[in-house]
């Protein structure tokens, strides 16, 4: 539910990121101009090496640009101290990675509770919050499992739960379904869609064109630049939060398996392209 009257949450002006020096110099981002409003669900697409992940890392304050301006909530990021940036990551940004990035020696509930550690929340409260979040994702029976004991879809749901436990306003997803089968991908995308409807800003990097149907705006990148940008606001007004609880899409999504299969058949050709690009 982007509101054009509000200041943009993310503003990028002529953003550049250079790797290497001299002859080996290469621009991963070569003058990105982008304005993202609160509540947008953006899908960033493009071929490998076009700078999608680099852009996501810069937006997530994990990396810094070589040149250009990045304003987060109206404040230039370069003026924010590394300590404050870490606090922003902790409180405002949730990361979802393609490879899940759970800590293997911690169990599920501890993994989900991890971001709360850096907010200085006590262990008991931390575990309670993590448990509540896992319950939303129907993983409450897996709380004390280790990451390797879960399926790919479950692991990604844990990763989403971890990204959400701090109630961040911005969610950055780097190919969240890249390691999942189509059914699990569908479940995860329904989750993200549900989060979007709750007012979260979601920026998702994907190679899968099918997943762009969930996004309110699709940006295609090429050679470090924005190639196309649909910039289409979502049609339905979603100012009222959905009545269903967070994560309730999971059983629904499972029921919608047939629907997903139909969608899959329709986009059979696109899937082939997607698989080829993965290979």
């Amino acid at each position, binding site marked *: 539910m982007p509101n054009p009257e509000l200041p943009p949450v993310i503003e990028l002006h002529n953003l550049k990121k250079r790797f290497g020096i001299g002859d080996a110099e290469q621009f991963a981002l070569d003058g990105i101009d982008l304005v993202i409003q609160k509540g947008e669900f953006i899908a960033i697409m493009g071929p490998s090496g076009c700078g999608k992940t680099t852009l996501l890392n810069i937006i997530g304050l994990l990396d810094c640009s070589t040149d250009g301006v990045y304003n987060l909530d109206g404040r230039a990021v370069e003026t924010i101290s590394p300590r404050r940036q*870490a606090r922003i990551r902790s409180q405002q940004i949730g990361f979802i990675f393609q490879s899940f990035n759970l800590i293997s020696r911690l169990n599920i509930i501890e993994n989900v509770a991890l971001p709360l550690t850096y907010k200085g929340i006590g262990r008991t409260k931390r575990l309670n919050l993590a448990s509540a979040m896992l319950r939303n994702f129907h993983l409450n029976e897996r709380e004390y499992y280790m990451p390797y004991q879960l399926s790919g879809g479950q692991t990604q749901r844990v990763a989403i739960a971890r990204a959400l436990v701090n109630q961040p306003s911005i969610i950055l997803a780097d190919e969240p379904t890249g390691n999942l089968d189509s059914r699990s991908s569908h479940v995860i995308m329904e989750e993200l869609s549900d989060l979007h409807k709750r007012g979260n800003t979601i920026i998702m990097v994907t190679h899968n064109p099918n997943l762009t149907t969930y996004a309110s705006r699709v940006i295609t990148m090429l050679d470090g630049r924005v190639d196309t940008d649909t910039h289409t606001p979502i049609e339905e007004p979603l100012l009222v939060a959905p009545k269903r609880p967070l994560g309730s899409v999971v059983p629904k999504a499972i029921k919608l398996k047939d629907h997903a299969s139909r969608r899959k058949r329709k986009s059979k050709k696109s899937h082939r392209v997607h698989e080829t690009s993965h290979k």
Partner: protein
Amino acid sequence: MRFLLLNHIQNANQSLRSNRLRSGLTTLGVTIGVASITTILALSAGASKVVGDQVDALGGNIAVIRPGATSPDPLSGLTQPNPHRDFAASTLTESDLALIGNIPHIEAVAPLMVLSGTVKADSVAPSETPIVATSPELELISNLKVQDGQFIDNTVNQDTTTIGAQLSIDIFGTDHSIGKTFTIRGKTFTVIGILKQTNNPINYNSIDFDTAAIVSLTSGKQLNQGLPQIQQINVRSDSVTNLNEAIINLNKTLIVAHHGEHDFTILTGNQISQPTSQLFYAIAGLTAAVAGISLLVGGIGIMNIMLVSVAERTREIGIRKALGATNADITIQFLIESLAIGLGGGITGYTVGYVVAFGISTFLTFDPVLNWEIVTVALTLSIVMGTVFGLYPAIRAARKDPIESLREYN
């Protein structure tokens, strides 16, 4: 902040538990270092305490006069640890003895003239057998107990001797050797008394009375070509309160007798045991320095393991940073881990060190000492080690680039 520190401790605990064997072996390295230092310090303190306790047990009313002035250099006691100074002519004379005996409040005076010589009887005693020429008052001053017979006496024949129980066994094969004879430098002595076994070779007289042969000063002079070589004079006052007054008079008398030359030293209380204590502490210090090498090795072990841990957990560091950890959070997390290893090793090492010290003390004549100084040394060393050797890996971990870290193979 309080919660965050608690969280770091919980994290460190989890991390160390997830690699129990590795953490255990690293802790063992520190344990060995701290244990060896604790053992050495506890035993040396025990040895020093023995001498101090003996002086205290004598009631605090004894003083010791030694030849030579007190050196202003505190290390002279270590470089010249032998108070008898065998090779120098003593500044204490027989006339001094007579003068000291006449000073008010002085109850007993006993000279000590320690000779070296081989005691020949049924079997030959060890060559280092101390032959102590003294007066009968030594029994009173040094609180020597006679097991059988009597102590040397002015009224009996001068060629008699009282010997230590161990010497009696060494040369006669029995501790009932009264009436038996042996020779020292060709002069025959008759045993008239056997001292009670003390198992106390470390004492302020620096004489192991268990293996000593005590003869009269007259006999001692005869064994030394008629020359008295008094290496120490033990003095006992009639009461503790009168000791100071007696010492003042003693000082005055001796300075006058020595023509104004202050060529003697009067020691009382802890001063008597000080040269011995200093020597033990110096030996302990040197040995502890050697043991410190094992501590250094333990510290390098901590650093090595922490560097391995940082390398292994690079991806975890990236994840933590992505989830909001600051560089300081990462530094503290790893520092707490190394500190936990150091402190764990320190506490275990301190305990093991004392167990070893008590084990060793069963073969020695003194017990190790438990005191707060050694606790402080052990804990400080372990904390310093954990911090110093853990700092570099912790900083290295904190400086990891989150992007590179997340790319690391899991």
